[in-house]
């Protein structure tokens, strides 16, 4: 206490303390209430009954507007397909490129949906996997109106209907797919890679890239042991984990990548790596020295799916847009831009037709796309491709640590 302070001041200073006590108590009670209210309420939703859903859809009408949330660069810049949709149906659209990463996006919409608030989107794009599973289990997705999918039923490839992660396309239809295989830099690796064992080969010590994602790397660990991830058991996962741990301990892996493997392999920092088909295709178009293969032992196919989130304001319009994207001309326009794997097989021929009436660079690139096994996998490829290991939430808690302990050591 400074003796220079006047007595009035000292009196003044004692008052705030009493006021502060009041605030303290108020604060503590508020905190107490917050704590009590703070159990994140989980709701394992019982799957909606058939008649419930029929009633739901019977009550819905076309509203004339649709809000589509997607990844950036996943739609032609001029919004061609969406504009045509608007012309044909009169439904106006809002297109928002708000998804940066699946896990983050889910982490963002989950609290909102749990609180029963609408997202403001009628269609969202979720990759199959853990978050997709959560969307279904938590009741965050509205089951689709199967009667409104004529184009999908007519034009979608058989392998895109009735996937293991969404039997009967109850909640989703595919938007674009990609597959995970092995890519290598042709300047440093002169041989043609065919086997997954190349990733484990000590002669590439320190030059191998693996993916950090547990589901991706888990699949490859299993492929290397001849295990089918779609039918795997906990025992299988552990075995795969051991194989991957040995790979790591031998110093073969340079890094566990997110998506940045593509720059690394193109530059030659790594010579051989797990890779997504779409990334390699793009780089090949740019003339970069990379090549790709689906290993004999197997590769992973993943799909970005269209879903209708709970609380969507315009579900009927959403269904119409989702189905519209399955018209062959529209799917072609879409795939020409996205350059991943379209769920509509007819696109391949349409691209060739388009190439015939085109010329020069455009013709070249259209043919390159139509002929590329990276955009149009062969029957043989499809036979080797498997989805991610199907996991319940309880199983995730066993699966994830096995592989994360290797990639995050």
């Amino acid at each position, binding site marked *: 206490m400074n003796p220079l302070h006047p007595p009035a001041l000292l009196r003044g200073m004692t008052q705030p303390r009493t006021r502060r006590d009041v605030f303290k108590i108020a604060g503590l009670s*508020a905190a107490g209430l917050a704590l009590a209210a703070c159990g994140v309420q989980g709701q394992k939703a019982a799957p909606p009954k058939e008649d419930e859903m029929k009633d739901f859809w019977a009550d819905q009408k076309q509203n004339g507007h649709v809000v589509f949330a997607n990844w950036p660069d996943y739609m032609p810049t001029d919004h061609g397909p969406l504009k045509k949709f608007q012309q044909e149906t009169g439904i106006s659209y809002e297109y928002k490129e708000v998804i940066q990463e699946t896990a983050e996006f889910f982490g963002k919409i989950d609290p909102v949906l749990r609180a029963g608030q609408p997202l403001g989107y009628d269609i969202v794009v979720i990759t199959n996997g853990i978050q997709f599973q959560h969307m279904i289990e938590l009741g965050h997705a509205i089951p689709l109106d199967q009667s409104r999918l004529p184009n999908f039923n007519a034009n979608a490839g058989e392998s895109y209907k009735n996937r293991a992660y969404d039997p009967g396309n109850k909640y989703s239809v595919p938007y674009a797919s990609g597959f995970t295989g092995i890519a290598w830099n042709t300047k440093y690796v002169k041989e043609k890679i065919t086997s997954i064992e190349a990733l484990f080969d000590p002669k590439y010590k320190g030059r191998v890239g693996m993916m950090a994602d547990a589901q991706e790397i888990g699949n490859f660990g299993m492929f290397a042991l001849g295990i089918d991830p779609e039918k795997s058991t906990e025992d299988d996962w552990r075995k795969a984990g051991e194989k991957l741990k040995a790979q790591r301990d031998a110093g073969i892996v*340079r*890094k566990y990548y997110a998506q940045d493997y593509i720059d690394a392999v193109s530059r030659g920092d790594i010579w051989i790596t797990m890779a997504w088909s779409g990334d390699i295709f793009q780089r090949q178009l740019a003339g970069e020295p990379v090549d790709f293969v689906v290993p004999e032992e197997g590769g992973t196919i993943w799909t970005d799916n269209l879903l209708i989130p709970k609380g969507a304001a315009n579900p009927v319009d959403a269904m119409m847009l989702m189905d519209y994207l399955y018209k062959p001309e529209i799917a072609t326009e879409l795939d020409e831009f996205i350059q991943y794997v379209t769920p509509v097989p007819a696109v391949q021929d349409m691209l060739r037709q388009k190439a015939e009436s085109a010329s020069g660079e455009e013709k070249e690139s259209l043919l390159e796309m139509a002929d590329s096994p990276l955009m149009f996998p062969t029957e043989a490829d499809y036979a080797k491709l498997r989805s991610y290991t199907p996991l319940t939430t309880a199983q995730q808690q066993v699966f994830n640590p096995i592989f994360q302990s290797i990639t*995050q050591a």
Partner: protein
Amino acid sequence: MRRLTPYLLALPGWMWMAIFLVVPLGAMASVSLQTGNAIDGFVMTFSVSNYSDAIGGYSIQLVRSLVYGGVATLAMLVIGYPVAYWIAFKGGRHKSVYLFLLLLPFFVSFVLRTISWGFLLADDGILLGTLKSWGLLHPDFRVLATSFAVVAGLTYNFLPFMILPIYVALERVDPRLVEAAQDLYAGRGTAFRKVVLPLSLPGVFAGVLMTFVPATADPVNAQVLGGTSNTMIGNIIQTEYLINNDYPTASALSFTLMAVLLVGIFAYARVLGTENVLEAAAR
């Protein structure tokens, strides 16, 4: 009235932080003591074991982060102090321009900066490739995917946060004082040590606070520049929260990290006697 001044001054800041920091953090603290999963929900079980499990399971990454953060902070201090010194004493009329130039690269997205570094530091790229072709480097030498790269990245990304506060403190020092001290102590070194350095301590403290803390918690540099053994605690928290949806563990780890950092900072403040320095300066 005058004695209410600090309270009035601090009030808006207090309110902002009370509403947007304290309440949400309180909620997180509560989550850190819960059990459950994303589907079935979480319930409060006061499970302090969340903390011990998290710390036990990730002690390596925690320690590693503190080490990386510490080394990077030291590097930033060594690299940045002379820059702050020069700008403060010799920057003349253009002082703020220099500061602005230091920060300008950070107005451009970190993704672009990091990708560009990847390009520059590629094993056979424009820098290393050239040096290797001249025989100055071993062909297997690399910068990326090493702990050096991660620490260098942290140093690069937070350097202005060290330079600016040191500059701010140094700029106040009267250059004539420095000259007089140099005459008195017959040398720049001693003058610096006995006069300039102590006066700059509030700035150094601020700089260390604003760099060590975020650097230790940073996930980006480890993710982009690291190899197989460089995972930091920020990455772990991210994975637990976003991938595993294990909110209690993520929260427990975050609070552990915050606690360690706060203890470190307070200890540092004590050791430095910064509080005393501030008081002395204010008198």
